[in-house]
């Protein structure tokens, strides 16, 4: 029968990883994500899995790259400062197409910032933190239950698309305790595609996603951070370079049907639509309820997959809306992306960068101001 417990989001995330088949964790202590490492240090050996605390976050990324190439589902967990250190190897894993998940429990930035406070100010870093052009998947839970469920999706998507996936939590969702129901049905699990005989390690496959050869089975697979051709060996060819970089974007953008995740509340007849995600979306839900009580047709579009950015979805959902409010705990990082889709006049940011959660009233006031 299903299991019910009262746990932190970080705990739920760790359990989700295990349920998804993660059997390797490498990480480094950092508030507010350390609980994930602590829980996996305890739980992984129980299932024959491996845990290692590395000397820094760069080493942690290197270790999970190595473990993933060794055939393990591997993850790490960190927060802003560690996430910054991980960027070069996140880029490496993108180009070498190594499946893994990086959990970033966002805290107040920049720099040491506000270590025990929430923020959502790493959204752009999740997209562009590593140098160069490449695609990325980022998923954002806004509850403890979702931290479990969505983490399974994150691990699956990494395997499915041979890519790093950023699991973008925040300190609120990470540290709050809520009911978690672990369904008794085993979740659907996606495993990396093994190559057909003679299939090259970077041949794009039917949907732009190459098969991933296993280490230790005689494949003699070469992995490099240099731009490489389908054989995996370095090349200086402009054509191959262009093809590779485009494929790293398009293998995700062409498969949005499998990646796109969002939630809606009263958005069908909404005149004022809030776009929010993570902890801020919890306040937005309450604001919608309060607005509706006042007869204001407000609605919420909650983004669960933030990267690749769901531009088409936003364009469609906001077509008949008078005004869009983007509620986020940063200086307008998703606001900027939404503005690119809808234009400045249609978008009203509701921002907070003072470590305090956006309140429902704050959003409601923005909506009512707009209404008058």
């Amino acid at each position, binding site marked *: 029968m299903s299991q019910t417990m009262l746990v932190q989001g970080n705990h739920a995330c760790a359990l989700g990883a295990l349920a998804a088949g993660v059997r390797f964790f490498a990480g480094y202590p950092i508030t507010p994500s350390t609980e994930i490492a602590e829980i996996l240090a305890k739980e992984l*050996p129980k299932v*024959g899995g*491996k845990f290692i605390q590395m*000397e820094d976050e760069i*080493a942690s990324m290197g*270790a999970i790259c*190595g473990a993933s190439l060794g*055939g393990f589902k*591997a993850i790490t967990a960190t927060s802003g400062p560690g996430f910054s250190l991980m960027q070069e190897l996140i880029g490496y894993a993108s180009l070498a197409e190594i499946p893994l998940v990086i959990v970033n429990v966002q805290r107040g930035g920049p720099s040491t910032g506000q270590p025990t406070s929430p923020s959502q100010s790493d959204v752009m870093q999740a997209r562009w933190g590593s140098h160069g052009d490449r695609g990325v998947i980022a998923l954002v839970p806004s509850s403890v239950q979702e931290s479990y469920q969505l983490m399974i999706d994150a691990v699956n998507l990494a395997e499915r698309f041979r890519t790093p996936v950023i699991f973008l939590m925040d300190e609120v969702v990470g540290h709050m305790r809520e009911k978690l129901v672990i369904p008794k049905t085993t979740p659907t699990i996606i495993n990396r595609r093994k190559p057909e005989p003679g299939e090259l390690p970077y041949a794009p496959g039917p949907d732009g996603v190459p098969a991933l050869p296993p280490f230790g089975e005689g494949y*003699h697979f070469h992995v490099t951070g240099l731009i490489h051709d389908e054989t995996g060996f370095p090349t200086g060819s402009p054509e191959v370079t262009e093809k590779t970089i485009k494929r790293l974007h398009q293998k995700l953008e062409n498969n949005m049907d499998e990646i796109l995740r969002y939630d809606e509340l009263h958005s069908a007849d909404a005149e004022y639509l809030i776009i929010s995600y993570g902890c801020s979306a919890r306040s937005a839900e309450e604001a919608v309820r309060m607005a509706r009580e006042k007869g204001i047709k407000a609605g919420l579009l909650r983004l669960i997959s933030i990267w690749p950015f769901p531009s088409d979805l936003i364009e469609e959902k906001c077509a008949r809306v008078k005004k869009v409010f983007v509620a986020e705990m940063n200086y307008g990082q998703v606001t900027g992306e939404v503005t690119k889709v809808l234009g400045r006049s249609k978008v009203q940011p509701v921002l907070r960068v003072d470590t305090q959660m956006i309140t429902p009233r704050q959003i409601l006031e923005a909506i009512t101001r707009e209404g008058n």
Partner: protein
Amino acid sequence: MNETLKKYFRMNRLPHIWCPGCGNGIVVGALVRAIDKLGLNPDKTSIISGIGCSSRSSGYLNFDTVHTAHGRALTFATGLKLARPDLNVIVLTGDGDATAIGGNHFIHAARRNIDLTTIVFNNNIYGMTGGQYSPLTPTHSKATTSPYGHIENPFDITELAKASGASYVARGTTYHTLELINLIADAISHKGFSVVEAITACPISFGRQNKLGNAPAMMKWQKENTISVKAASKLPAEQLAGKVVIGELYRRQAPEYTAEYQKVIDRVTGGNGQ
């Protein structure tokens, strides 16, 4: 090249890119002969390299290979070895790659005594980027970034490895090729963190900038300025000044990381750990 060694190379990737007289090819040749001597199963052997001249080696070797990021080979290797203790994992790295940007990983991998064989191609310089000094560049040497003579003191990487916890430490040179093969073979066979410093000539950059002559001349320097561990033990300290000691410098048996972790799994799972 001897026919029997060809299976260890990706022949279609040769000739390699190293400059005429660069010793890296000799070190890789020694590694391949050590692997052949031990009869390692190439399907169960992974070679992980960093960035720099030394680290192009993984592309030429017919194994599961990873050309990682600068300084990070040991972190990839640690993850791979912990996940897959059944694989032989060999790390090829340069003096800069291992002790500058990779220094933190080097001392921690040694501290853990994880079963990795690390071969440091020490050519005293950053060759790939055109000849800057590295943490192993001798004091007073010329480099493009020490045009007035290097004022820094280099590490003794073998002492650094030993102090950090490595359980096998050796130093060889490209001149003493047969010995280098044996040192590498012993390092691979040793269960624990093994380091072999391979002194190798960089005639095009370090040699030219310091007027050390061509490749044979630099290898003659290796012959005339090194002393074996055995011979050195018989000489008083002052006579050792300026001499580089080569051979097996240090070895001890110590708990190996992946074996210890497996014990944890066995303890926690009551022995039926998957």
